[in-house]
């Protein structure tokens, strides 16, 4: 076990190096150098060249890598070219925004999806089950940006017309009346959380239903029924505990995505999160920011995968490494 953990940690570290190298190369090989987009179109070429020189960007990319790696190992992600701020500072500003948005969406969707999945499974082939599966099929087929656009229209424009300008959800970063603080946050969160949650409810409820159905057909559940236990007790005490394990794993493995944010949803609703930061950085060729986001997500993904594998081995004595 100890040997296995050590080996996995070493492999994980190696993977991270590999990824930093691959992504470093990828950003540098992307045509269009930094300062070529967005910035002042009248900027003098000499100024740009001077800046590029100062940042060492005129050297070939593989010659730039050792310096980057050295800084990375020392926990220094460099400074953003666009914001003129340390990347670590930008990340600490943006990470909470994405975590709040995606965390709320996750909690909301789990609160809806888990009961829905359980009901659908315990009443298989009932009207409720059929309705749930139709809804989840539609939910899976609607991309987040389509839903987002229509929510924008319905919540921001249509609702406003309908109520004569009294009741609407704030759009494009504007504020609603005199609201501020938590109130403002909640108002801004309604539409993006809805658009994210619909998709996850569709996915999670199907998953929960399948998992519950599988458990309900197992021998120990039949034994529990044969003992004369009430259907409720069998369903919720015996079956649910085992059925909910896979969904917990699924959620745990998705946790790193919280930090990477939701590029499209954040873009549509102007939510200042990591997804928007990363996408804008990719468009602006803001190398340190792109690499910072990617490496942060990579570290979390590798760590969570490792933790999940170790947790399996601890929980399930049949697994040996």
């Amino acid at each position: 076990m100890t040997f296995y953990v050590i080996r996995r940690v070493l492999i994980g570290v190696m993977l991270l190096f590999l990824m930093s190298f691959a992504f470093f190369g990828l950003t540098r090989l992307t045509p269009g150098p930094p300062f070529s987009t967005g910035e002042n179109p009248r900027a003098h070429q000499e100024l740009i060249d001077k800046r590029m020189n100062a940042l060492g960007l005129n050297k070939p990319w593989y010659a730039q890598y050792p310096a980057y790696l050295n800084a990375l190992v020392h926990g220094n992600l460099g400074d953003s070219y666009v914001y003129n701020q340390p990347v670590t500072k930008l990340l600490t500003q943006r990470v909470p925004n994405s975590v709040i948005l995606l965390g709320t969406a996750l909690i909301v969707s789990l609160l809806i999806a888990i009961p829905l999945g359980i009901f659908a499974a315990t009443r298989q082939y009932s009207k409720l089950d059929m309705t749930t599966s139709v809804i989840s099929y539609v939910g899976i087929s609607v991309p987040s940006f389509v839903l987002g656009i229509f929510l924008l229209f319905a919540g921001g424009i249509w609702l406003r017309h309908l109520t004569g300008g009294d009741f609407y959800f704030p759009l494009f970063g504007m504020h609603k009346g005199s609201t501020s603080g938590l109130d403002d946050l909640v108002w801004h969160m309604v539409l993006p959380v809805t658009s994210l949650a619909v998709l996850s409810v569709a996915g999670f409820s199907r998953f929960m239903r399948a998992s519950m159905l599988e458990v309900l057909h197992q021998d120990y559940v039949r034994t529990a029924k044969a003992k004369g236990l009430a259907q409720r007790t069998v369903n919720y005490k015996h079956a649910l505990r085992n059925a909910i394990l896979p969904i917990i794993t699924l959620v745990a493995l998705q946790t790193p995505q919280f930090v990477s944010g939701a590029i499209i949803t954040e873009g549509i609703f102007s939510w200042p999160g990591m997804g928007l930061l990363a996408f804008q950085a990719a468009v602006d060729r803001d190398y340190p920011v792109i690499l910072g986001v990617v490496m942060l997500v990579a570290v979390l993904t590798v760590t969570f995968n490792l933790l999940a594998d170790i947790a399996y081995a601890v929980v399930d004595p049949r697994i040996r490494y």
Partner: protein
Amino acid sequence: MADQPLKRIAQTGSLLGAAGVAQAMAAEEALRHEGAAEDLVVAEVAEPSEIGFWKLAVIRFLHHRTATVSLGILLFIIVTAMILPTFQGDLFRLQDYTHPYGSPFEFHSRTVSLAGASFSIPWTDHLLGTDALGRDEMARLVRGARVSLTVGLLAMLGYIIIGGILGALAGYYGGWIDNALMRLTDVIIAMPFILVVVAVTAAFGGVSLTVLVLVIAGLGWFEIGRLMRAQFLVLRESEFVQAARALGASDARIIFRHIVPNSLAPIIVSATLGVSGIILLEAALGFLGYSVPPPEPSWGNLLSQYEEEIQLGKLWPLAFPAIALVTTALCINLIGDGIRDALDPRQR
């Protein structure tokens, strides 16, 4: 063990002779409802099966009503996307300067003369209206379907080729190939997909249909790859493969004659569902401006003008591509579900 019921059903089918599909299905239903043991006894004495696994799967699929309806709608979309643009030619990029922002379904009467007599019929130049530049929305929508469907199908072909081969090698031979492959998929999964696509397409020097297909196929194959690997891992140890090996069959023969035919079912299901995933991904990229460049339309491109349209209070230019996109994805998902049911003998 899993395909035991299917064999029984098939045998019952053969008992009915060439009487056909409907009777086989009825027999299947009867078997399922009653588990009819006496029927089975008769069936097992009968001639060997005439309806094979795949034929039976097709029969079962055709009896899945939602799936067949979805297939019909999808075929209609595909045929329209293939035929209509060839008649319309350059209409998708021609600008009607006199009619920008045209509303959909605006009919006016027009006189046509046919065989000497003249009639007045409702007519519209632009059935679904025009965009800000006066381009015909209908032509753009139909032409956009081409991009979405082409990318969906070709990228999936890429998934199957790359993922199938690498997954099969990893599952069959194991060892360092397996390890390297699994770590590679870890790397790909840990990367934010859209960012990578943006960076790689840019590295190719701009987006075209070919680049889009290559990039999506090159980054998305691992799901099929993992599935293939898992299938090979299980089947490699199965008794019929051991028997084949004991008889001295070569690796190639074992792989292609014994393992691949038995591993196809989950791959087909995953591939079908994957096509809708790719179509939605292409639309998302188009939405972000990283699909085919203008004036070539794609459903994602058409939706990317949303900010302007919403501020103008116009929803319909967004409604048509959205409906087309969701309908296509939904149809493919339902077809995939139908195929899953048809191929899985345990499912009802």
